[in-house]
């Protein structure tokens, strides 16, 4: 069975590319446009990995990440933070609150796919 990936980002211009790419890579995809929707989709869709944007309306990516990590039942869920916030302090924060990887935009799609595969392969 294909791994399931939830893409959380409020910018359709990146969602379209990620969605296309991940589908081509053979993953099953769902999309959420803000933090609240993301938490709901995690419950309904039960993804193996979340591609999570930091800057979003309603709930920030950090908050979503913290909420997900607060639930021990989801310990196996992989979280990759995708963000335009590239300062090292922000990277440190993302990793500290439990993200498995922190990828700053702009990123190479190939690298992203490699990271995603690595994370899911280890699961």
């Amino acid at each position, binding site marked *: 069975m294909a791994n399931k990936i939830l893409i959380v980002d409020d910018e359709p211009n990146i969602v379209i*590319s990620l969605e296309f790419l991940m589908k081509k890579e053979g993953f099953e995809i769902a999309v959420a446009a803000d933090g609240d929707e993301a938490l709901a989709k995690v419950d309904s869709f039960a993804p193996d990995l979340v591609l999570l944007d930091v800057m979003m309306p309603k709930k920030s990516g950090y908050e979503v990440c913290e909420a997900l990590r607060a639930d021990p039942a989801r310990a196996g869920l992989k979280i990759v933070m995708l963000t335009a*916030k590239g300062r090292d302090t922000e990277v440190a924060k993302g990793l500290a609150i439990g993200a498995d990887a922190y990828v700053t935009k*702009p990123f190479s799609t190939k690298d992203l796919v490699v990271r995603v595969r690595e994370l899911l392969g280890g699961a």
Partner: protein
Amino acid sequence: MKAKYRFIAAIVVLALLMTGPFVVTSLLVWLDMKDAERTMLTELLLSRLPVGTLMTLFGFAIGAAVLHKLFKQYVEGLLRMAETLRLMLGANRDFRVTPDGPPEVRQLAQAANDLAAQRDALMDDVDAQIARAKASVEEEKNRLAALMSELAQAVVVCNLDGRILLYNNRARLQFKALAQGPTSVSGGALIGLGRSIFSILDKGQVEHAREVIVQRLAAGKMPMAHFITTTRGGQLLRVQMVPVMAGEGGLSGYVLTVENITRSIEEEERRDQALHTLTQGSRSAIGNIRAAVANLLDYPDMEPELRERFLRVIDDEVARRSVVIDQTMSQFSDSMKTRWPLEDILGIDVIAAAQRRIEDKLKLPTKTEELDDALWMRADSYSLIFALGFLASKLQDHYAPRELRFRLSSEGRLAYLDLIWSGPAMSSETFYTWEMEVMQFGSETSPLTLREVIDRHGGEIWYQREKAAHRAFFRFVLPVATPETEAAPEERRVTGRPEYYDFDLFKFEDASIDLDRKLSELAYTVFDTETTGLEPSNGDEIIQIGAARIVNNRLLRQEVFNQIVDPERPLRPEGIPIHGITEDMVRGQPTIDVVLPAFHEFCEETVLIAHNAAFDMRFLQLKEERTGIRFGQPVLDTLLLSAVAHPNQESHKLDDIMTRLGVVIGKRHNALEDALATGEVFLKLVPLLEEQGIVTVRQALEASEKTYFARVKY
């Protein structure tokens, strides 16, 4: 007295000497004689007795006279001399003994006079030395004050209690700008000699900085502290503190250098913001584009519809980014200039300086054409003038123009400074090499190239030809400056040294009002009001308040309050010639509700002084209810104090007192001028009152009260 007794004793001794030996001899002879001899002698003697007695008395009289004369000359004469010597010693230095009496006494007098002359010479010498020393100290002080007043930084010197001992003009302007509302018209009521710095700066921060300095001193480090503080108006101030050391190595005060960094901080924030929009903001856009491009490249065989969508993503993101970049550039163009320190300078000043240098060094005549003489530029004047000189000398070397001309104009936010000459066209390649050359002008070489100078200004330069006029010009494009709005240079009310400092305040511990302090030690506000009429209870109102401060026995003409007030009622025509204030002048001025709080702040911690104070106080008190401002401090009245000092004088009108005390002042009948006159009068009255034993404020108030009641009774 004692001398007189001694004289009487001497007379008695003389009498005994003249009669004693005869009487004793007679007695001894008498005892030796027989009776017959005695009878014979008695007869013999009795018949001659009157002659003998007469002779004895005569001799005695002569003896007494001689004795008296000697006494007068040698005893009383010397006593008199002793008195005059004592006078010379004390009250009157110039007094001299008049040589009088016998030669010995004269010689003594002469010797005493000689001694006195020698002493005078010595004393004069000492006085002269002291005067010289004082003068040099005074000169040093004045030099320091002059130096401080011209400094571009705001400097304030305080004693350990935070009382201001010195401030410079820059500080005054800066704090004046910070003052809110009509306080600004009071000449910066916040800052003033003897006032507390804590009304401007946060006390906790100042005290903390002082502790830091004490600790650094103890640790042998450079004693200096910085802090940043916000004012009531939300301005940011960067304050640097260095200590003023007392002789024994202790702290006696501190020097504060204050810089308003609100503008530069705002600019920095804007710059950060610009940087942020350009970096972080670009990240997601480029991320979107990159992902879309990667997909297009990696999956060339995707459906046309999908391909179209990815291309749209790229198109959309690129278009949006372009807009952002344009916006950022126009919004932040100022903040993104190089950080080279540029100053605001008047364009014509730069041109005048460049003309001087070019004519001086190159012997090349210069002229000016249209000059915008109100145009300010942001520039580094030294390197800019150097660049103009460099171009002039290049032109001279290559094209030998007969003269150079300058032109200055502006367009929007850009200033155009043109260097014009007549001659053949030059190639743009030539100019390009000039731009990149290290600049040389006369014997001087600059480490910079023309291009670097231009870049530092965030400006541009180009070569342009005016074909019709057969001439060409270099155009320097520089940013136009909006000079910081500073208070217009006000007319100096006094000539001579500014009263921005008073080092005697170092000893001035506490400025709070204590009625038992000496009159000469307290801080005062002398004030006067002009009013629409004489009956406050009948609707007359204040139309002007003028006030000045007296600190440490000195009238501070720079620290004044001078405000015209809108009385919110028509002026009485008969009053206008007296106060010289017209309807036009009061219209648009703040009302008493605004002015009174500012005046109250100006008077803080001072004793009030006014001439016929009861009148002015009545006007202030009638406003108490409406404004909630109460003037609770003690009030001295120069009219009453003059009556205390000169109880027998008929008039205590201000003009008459001024004549009596020799106070000369230019104008009168303007609230500020009258307040200043009152201040001068008060300072003259203080020593006169002291002579009468009236030294403290309490004594002055009590004495005033007595005269007041005395006058009321009559």
